[in-house]
């Protein structure tokens, strides 16, 4: 037989692809569904850790339950909607009260969303955590590295940015070498945060 059957050349490939697609999509979907809970839990813990980090409150890195406990004890959510409170009232390690606010601004590629921790004097920072950023990996994305975030603790605004490694004064912040625009974006967000915080707290009350 010279010519291959109609079935083989036309119908079979279609059936094959459909079956193959169904099989693989089911497997993939199965795995997706089985990890969905875990993914949601991860995100909620991430946000809680971010708030604690911005407030300068210590927490055991890998103990989910303990993290939840510390969070329950020291943080109060105010306003906003489910999952994204407008701001938080926290009980700082020093005993004082502090605030943690969500704020955001234009980064180089997209929005940078951050949590800033402030003391009630509305001038001193307790810390910062970046919740969302799409900056250049290895450069702008380094704002999420510890050394960059830690420098915000205890600094007093309004801020100025200086060359990496030379920040001395309480209002100076190190930029990231090679990531000028991202650094400037963060500076802008930091300088705006006091205004943002005041507005949110006023609204909340």
């Amino acid at each position, binding site marked *: 037989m010279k010519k291959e059957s109609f079935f083989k050349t036309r119908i079979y*490939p279609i059936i*094959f692809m459909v079956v193959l*697609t169904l099989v693989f999509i089911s497997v993939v979907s199965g795995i997706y569904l089985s*990890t969905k809970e875990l*993914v949601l839990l991860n995100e909620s813990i991430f946000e809680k850790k971010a708030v604690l980090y911005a407030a300068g409150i210590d927490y055991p890195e890998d103990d989910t339950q303990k993290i939840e406990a510390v969070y329950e004890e020291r943080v109060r959510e105010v306003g906003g909607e489910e999952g994204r409170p407008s701001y938080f009232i926290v009980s700082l390690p020093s005993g004082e009260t502090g605030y943690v606010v969500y704020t955001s601004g234009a980064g180089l590629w997209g929005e940078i969303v951050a949590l800033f921790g402030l003391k009630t004097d509305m001038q001193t920072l307790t810390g910062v955590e970046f919740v969302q950023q799409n900056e250049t990996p*290895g450069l702008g994305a380094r704002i999420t590295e510890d050394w960059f975030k830690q420098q915000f603790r205890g600094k007093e605004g309004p801020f100025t940015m200086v060359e990496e490694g030379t920040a001395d004064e309480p209002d100076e912040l190190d930029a990231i070498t*090679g990531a000028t625009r991202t650094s400037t974006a963060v500076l802008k967000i930091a300088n705006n945060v006091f205004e943002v915080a005041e507005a949110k707290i006023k609204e909340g009350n």
Partner: protein
Amino acid sequence: MPARGKIKKTFFEPLGKNNPVFAQILGICSTLAVTNKLENTVIMCMGVLFTTSLSGFTISLIRKLIPSRVRMMAETLIIASFVIIVDIVLRAYVPDIWKQLGPYVGLIITNCIIMGRAEAFALNNPPGLSLVDGIASGLGYSYVLIVIAFFRELLGTGEIWGLPVLGDWWTNWSIMIMPPGAFFMLAIFVWVVKGVLIKESEEAAK
């Protein structure tokens, strides 16, 4: 069960002379981006290894059933599915690293090596051997990138795996964490390897 010798040969070829990366600089795109940190590179390579070996295995399993018209589509579907699985698993179990890897995990699909091995090997060989070939290709690919990542992180940040190794005396070669550094490192790597290979073939010719 294929002969022992054949398994050995299948395993070692992609690691040495026929290393797809050296031979044709294949599949570099998706991983070069994350080689600025050793930790990220290792995770990424595990993902590539998983995809290369399992897709090779699967494609080989059904190779007699795949109609030639839809060959590429079927291969792409299978490879893409495994990559999605990698993405989902990474997101669930190592979310911080997943965030850093960004779109590059998805780009494993377009990794020329995986498709290349599927066409060249998996379609014509039994599943067992294809699995071995997939694993070996994945490993051959991985060690090149791990070496590059090692140097990039070390010279660029003075750290390895996030742990400070070089002391304060070391001024970071920031260029290493930026794209030019990656290209230069890869070029040097290729140079070294080609140098060795060329010498070998010159000696063999004698």
